[in-house]
């Protein structure tokens, strides 16, 4: 799915602009996501990577407008989906988007399915709700969708309960549920993290196949750069609630500009780089309520930090075509 030279860029499906999400906590408001922006075009897979707690899930849930408010609140920003700002949608209109035009799958296939209902009911519900199908039609279509995501014996599995299925099958059920209404956008929040390595590969392959077949766009959230290398067209790297680098996948892997990305790259042995660096980056991610003010959040851990990095927040600026980086002293400058 990569490497195709498309002369005119495909239409934009999702454009997040300057999104800042805060949480009201007992000790005051904290920002989990700050000035995040990215663009996802039709038929592309955008990877959103970063360490645990950097705000990937919050970003995804903000797009779905599923953050609990309170405590969460969107401080600023726009979430343009097919050129309409989701943040302006009333709740009932937003419901016609969720599960219909945007599907979502989660990290934990074990707990993301309701244990009290058959998988057929849970998939069919989407069709009945969004497509107005009756029970029989929904059931027939459910079996088709299940077959479409590679669930064998779908005709009998449709009446099974989640606990009767393996983790990989459950994630396929989740995918079937998310894709039942042919969404334009699929948000996959670490869809393979909880699975065995072999099953991981199967699920990633499946997602790639389905993405191509259905010509949908995918926002693939992961902290695994290997997954990114295999699946994505474009990558946005998040650090402590901000996007620090955004680039086409090959460009990012061959010429990482941000010292944080650079550090991450050298942490993946399977890319065949010389492992001169430590497998993990030294230091800690600043916690939400202890983020330094008015400086680069990575400065404390950064081997290239200069004096300016402690004075000013670096903005995300374009370096090459499609390659943006938020750093005062990037690699390869």
């Amino acid at each position, binding site marked *: 799915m990569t490497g195709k030279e498309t002369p005119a860029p495909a239409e934009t499906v999702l454009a997040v602009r300057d999104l800042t999400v805060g949480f009201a906590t007992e000790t005051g408001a904290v920002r989990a996501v700050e000035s995040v922006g990215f663009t996802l075009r039709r038929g592309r897979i955008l990877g959103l990577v970063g360490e645990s707690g950097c705000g990937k899930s919050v970003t995804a849930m903000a797009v779905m407008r599923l953050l609990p408010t309170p405590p969460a609140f969107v401080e600023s920003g726009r979430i343009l989906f097919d050129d309409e700002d989701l943040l302006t949608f009333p709740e009932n209109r937003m*419901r016609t988007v969720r*599960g219909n035009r945007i599907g979502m799958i*989660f990290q934990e296939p074990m*707990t993301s*399915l*309701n244990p*009290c209902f058959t998988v057929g009911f849970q998939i069919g519900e989407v069709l009945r*709700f969004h497509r107005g199908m009756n029970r029989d039609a929904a059931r027939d279509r459910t079996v088709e969708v299940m077959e479409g995501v590679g669930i064998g014996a779908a005709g009998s599995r449709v009446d099974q309960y989640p606990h009767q299925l393996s983790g990989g099958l459950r994630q396929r059920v*989740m995918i079937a549920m998310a894709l039942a209404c042919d969404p334009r956008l699929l948000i996959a929040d670490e869809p393979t993290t909880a699975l065995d390595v072999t099953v991981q590969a199967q699920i990633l392959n499946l997602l790639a196949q389905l993405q191509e077949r259905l010509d949908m766009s995918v926002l693939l959230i992961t902290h695994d750069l290997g997954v990114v290398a295999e699946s994505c067209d474009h990558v946005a790297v998040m650090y402590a609630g901000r996007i620090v680098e955004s680039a086409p996948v090959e460009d990012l892997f061959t010429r990482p500009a941000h010292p944080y990305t650079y550090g991450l790259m050298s942490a993946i042995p399977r890319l065949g780089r010389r492992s001169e660096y430590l497998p993990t980056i030294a230091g800690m991610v600043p916690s939400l309520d202890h983020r330094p003010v008015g400086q680069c959040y990575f400065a404390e851990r950064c081997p290239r930090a200069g004096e300016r990095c402690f004075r000013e927040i670096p903005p995300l600026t374009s370096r090459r075509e499609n390659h943006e980086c938020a750093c005062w002293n990037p690699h390869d400058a």
Partner: protein
Amino acid sequence: MIRFLAKRIGQAVAILLGVTVVTFVLSFLMPADPVRMLAGRSATPETVESIRRELGLDQPLPVQYVKYITRLVQGDFGRSYRQKTEVSALILSRLPATLLLLLGAIFFELLIGMPAGIFSATRRGRPSDNWIMAFSFAGVSMPQFVIGLLLLYLFAHMLPIFPLGGYGTLNHLVLPALTLGISGGGWYSRMMRSAMVDVLRKDYVRTARAKGMTERRVILVHALRNAILPIIAMIGLDIGIFMAGAVVVESVFGWPGIGQLAWQAIQMVDIPIIMGVTLVAAIGIVLGNLLADLVMPFLDPRLQLE
């Protein structure tokens, strides 16, 4: 299924046997002497002794117990000391009234407790949640006879909608059942709330929202189906708590049920009736639990009959 039932019936027999031992010992530890209660104050020692012999109360306790159990397994609950009638006949004649009250009480408990608990859970920490929980606490902590008298005062005296007491029509049932419903509903609302709060945090609730389901459907279908299990278990256990309440409420409302029978028997130290009522209550509890265990696998397929 067969194995499950066999196991449960075995357990039930053991429990019931234990119950008979405990009630038997307890009723003889009561400070009052049933024989003297029967004979009256002016009876001669000879009369007292003859009554004692007649009732078999002159024999050692273990012998009495063995005799009691031997008759019990033949379905003989004994005779009332005072009324001389069969205990089983007395209980049977009063069972329908108490069962009716039980159904009415559970109806009001659920009618009050479930919506209050669900509503509270969805508004956790907000003023409406605090208010509901304050009310449920009041319902739980107020003595049942106070609730009963309050209801009588409000809805039979001030606004004469319901009769002051008695038995016969559905109208007679409302106030006694509501009394039990208010005190029990407090428990149900707390249980419902905590189960619901727990379930609303689950990943599958987030999934249901991500599917575009209405909040109403998320709560009443996806979450409730999971949160209702502890409620079902509680209904099964409730029969024991209910019997204690029935003693009070049946007396307040003149409801001719087993509770009233038990209350009179306790005052008269009519041990066969006390034993019989306790045993019937225990059987009720065992059956209630069994029923709850049989229903739950239908609601949660992960539960298997073990």
